[in-house]
């Protein structure tokens, strides 16, 4: 059963190796001549004033919460998609009702401006 995951395994290994190899190669090949301007955070930009970590307003949190809700929705979609062939039309109606209730919530959140990044 693990052999089903061979491709995913190879993919993971390559994905991890790729940036490591690229960075390591660059590290060995590139010339090293640091100076004060070069090692500053923004070499060709403005220096930041004050802390870079600013406190955000709680309104942004609504964003995250709405995201979580629709994220969980996708978890339900996954077994539905896999088992769909065995379930047929009935499952389509079920999922339609499930989504309709959530779309109601989405319309509500949208009209209330919860999706605006102000």
């Amino acid at each position, binding site marked *: 059963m*693990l052999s089903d995951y061979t491709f995913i395994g190879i993919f993971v290994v390559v994905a991890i190796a790729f940036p490591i190899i690229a960075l390591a190669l660059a590290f060995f090949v590139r010339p090293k001549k640091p100076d004060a301007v070069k090692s500053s955070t923004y070499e060709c930009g403005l220096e930041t004033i004050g802390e870079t970590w600013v406190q955000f307003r709680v309104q942004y949190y609504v964003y995250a919460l709405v995201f979580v809700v629709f*994220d969980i929705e996708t*978890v339900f979609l996954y077994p539905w998609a896999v088992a769909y062939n065995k379930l047929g039309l009935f499952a389509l109606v079920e999922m339609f009702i499930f989504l309709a209730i*959530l779309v109601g919530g989405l319309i509500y959140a949208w009209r209330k401006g919860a999706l605006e990044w102000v």
Partner: protein
Amino acid sequence: MELALFVVLAVIAVIAAAGVVLSKKAATGALFLLLNFCTLAGLYILLNAQFIAVAQVIIYAGAIVVLFLFVLMLLSPGKEESQDRKPYIRVFAVFLAVLMLGEVGYVAFTGVLSGTPGQYTPEKIAEVGNVQAIGQVLFTDFLLPFELASVLLLVGIVGAVVLAKREL
């Protein structure tokens, strides 16, 4: 092969978990948590529980870590390291952790507690596939809880908007 994978994943998981507790910056801790969740997903796949693995990645690694990072954004800068820990709390925490470890170890090695297997035995799941088995049960026998879950999520949306939106 399975054992080797398990050992690798388990070691990463333990290191990441230690990183969550020990890292000084909360944001680093959250990223360690992300790593921990991902390795756990790998462990679930080794257990032939693909659905939980996917749910682990989507909900925990996706949504929960995002929530944590959002909470960090809401905190005022620089204050996240001011914790007044009382020493006895640490002692108590260690005590609880040891107790828990002992409990888990006891149950794992003696096998004193055995439940009643349900209708989905590992053999049956291996036959139809974990996700498909869940899908078939979820959309037939557990149809009502499934639809109720959507009502629950709706309550969540409304609640979030009502409590956090500046103007209703």
